[in-house]
């Protein structure tokens, strides 16, 4: 009894076995107000449920579902926000607009292509790094090796995007360096192109890939690799037959996370992209600034993007995650 009190960090409780507290919380607990409100509520089963579940459930329903629900509702209205003299009615027109105009669905397709390409590129680039930290670095050095990878991510999205400009601008580091060593006469235009956008996206999101991959690869027992090697499997076979299948969970969650993040990136395309790389978020944003009666269209488009993105991520998870590992 004394022992459990010590674990609970309750120095005052040590002297008593019945609830008789003497410190700050105790004074509240022993006060008449507490006994008749919270104290009484905790005593009754219904009160306990309300106390435990009330606020969380209200919050979850109001603010985790509420906004999406309102967006869905407004996407089916002809006018919003309400204007005097204009009757708003139920319609599917806002969704139909999307399929009618290539001006709208081209950016969505572009967004998907970019997000997919960026996800694939991130996977290819980050996988060896995650493998190196998880399997080749000695256990005591791992947290340091990881920390070094984490440092850039304490800089915000905008600062990282901005720093990519320093590298790729016409008078940025790469162009100046190439000119100094005489490889080029005039700067290669890299900024405001698909290249700079892709480069920036990968730079922005590689951490989301790194952590899931790392934790998946780290869990693979080293004996499996040793056993395979003893049985004559070369490095490539070991990678293909053991490491890759066993890190599948990490690949699936990393890729989904990166893909969904990429799709929703808003500021980076605006800063690093050019006129040819207008992404869907920017298209949607147009409906909410300026002419405000386009809100329903924007809401419909946002939902189209959300649903297609989730479906794409779901299909990917099913395709990659569905197969059972063949290595063991």
């Amino acid at each position, binding site marked *: 009894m004394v022992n*459990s*009190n010590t*674990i609970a960090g309750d120095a005052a409780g040590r002297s008593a076995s*019945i*609830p008789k*507290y003497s410190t700050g919380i105790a004074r509240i*607990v022993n006060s008449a107000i507490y006994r008749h409100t*919270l104290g009484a509520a*905790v005593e009754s089963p219904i009160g306990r449920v309300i*106390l*435990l*579940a009330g606020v*969380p*459930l209200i*919050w979850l*329903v109001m*603010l*985790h579902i509420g*906004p999406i629900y*309102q*967006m869905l509702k*407004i996407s089916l209205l002809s006018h919003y*926000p309400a204007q005097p003299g204009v009757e708003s009615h139920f319609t599917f027109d806002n969704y139909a607009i999307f399929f009618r105009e290539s001006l709208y669905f081209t950016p969505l397709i572009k967004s998907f292509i970019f997000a997919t390409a960026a996800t694939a590129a991130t996977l290819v680039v980050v996988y060896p*790094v995650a493998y190196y930290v998880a399997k*080749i670095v000695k256990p005591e050095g791992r*947290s340091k090796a990881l920390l*070094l*990878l*984490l*440092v*850039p991510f*304490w*800089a*915000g*999205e*905008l*600062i*990282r995007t*901005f*720093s990519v*400009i*320093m590298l790729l601008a016409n*008078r*940025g*580091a790469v162009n*100046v360096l190439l000119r100094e060593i005489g490889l080029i006469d005039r700067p290669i235009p890299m900024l405001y192109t698909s290249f700079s956008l892709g480069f920036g996206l990968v730079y922005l999101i590689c951490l989301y890939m790194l952590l899931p991959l790392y934790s998946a690869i780290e869990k693979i027992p080293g004996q499996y690799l040793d056993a395979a*090697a003893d049985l004559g499997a070369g*490095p490539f076979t070991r990678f293909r037959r053991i490491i890759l299948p066993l890190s599948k969970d990490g690949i699936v969650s990393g890729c989904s996370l990166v893909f969904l993040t990429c799709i*929703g990136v*808003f*500021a980076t395309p605006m*800063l690093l992209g050019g006129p040819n790389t207008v992404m869907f*978020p920017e298209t*949607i*944003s147009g409906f909410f600034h300026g002419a405000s009666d386009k809100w329903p269209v924007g*809401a419909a488009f*946002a*939902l189209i*993007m*959300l649903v297609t993105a989730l479906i794409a991520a779901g299909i990917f998870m099913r395709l990659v995650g569905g197969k059972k590992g063949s290595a063991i």
Partner: protein
Amino acid sequence: MRNMVSDAPRTTLTAFYWAFILYLLLPLTLMMAMSFKDANFVAFPIGDWTLDWYAKVMQDKQFLEACLYSIMIAAASTLAATTLGTWIAMLIVADGIRGRTIIFALACLPAVVPGMISAISLRIFISTIDMPTGTAAIILGHTVHAVPFVVVMALTRLRSMPRNLVDAARDLGADGVVAFFRVTLPYLGPALFGGMIFCVLLSIDDFVRTFFLGGYRPTLPMLIFAKVQGGMSPEINAMATIVLVVTAAVGLYAEFITRRARTR
């Protein structure tokens, strides 16, 4: 024999790791270096060095106000998110709760919805409840964004908590509320602290939600965005460098604290 075979991949991977570190750090280093350039335009090579831009930034009222505003929003949303996230986590681990998985999935929803869509849905939401854009709306948006992370962090820690701690407190006469504040909360402490720092960084970093929910008062990311779009100047580099150094220090500190708590 085996070591000889695996030596070549090992060297390649080591080289690749360091190349990747270089890739991560080079742009930021260049950005910081540029903040010391003694000229009005952003371009390499740097040539003359100066600290003038820092002096200018430190006197820039707009920058200082944006800093304070961002910190205020971060503090408020972190407090709200930590409270709500912990509460939700307590509900999820409570005995006899039906639909645990659904509650957990709901709690994680804002982390899965792409940032842009989350921002728009919140913009629509606040307009349907007649809430004006501005400080309160931003805080609400950042809180929604941060709650899933707190829930996950609190849950991880709660699952490792020995059951008998709370049972002992209950045996000794503490009711549910008292047991929570005196036993569970102190046990959650380190995880929550890490979660809070994470929320602060998340909020200070957030652009898209603030962009849609904010009024005319710029937060730090909004200010930097406006300045970058308005034209390059080493002043932005100085600004970004200050923000970067401060947030990295906070992040490093949090990492240190949570790591110490984990090994204890």
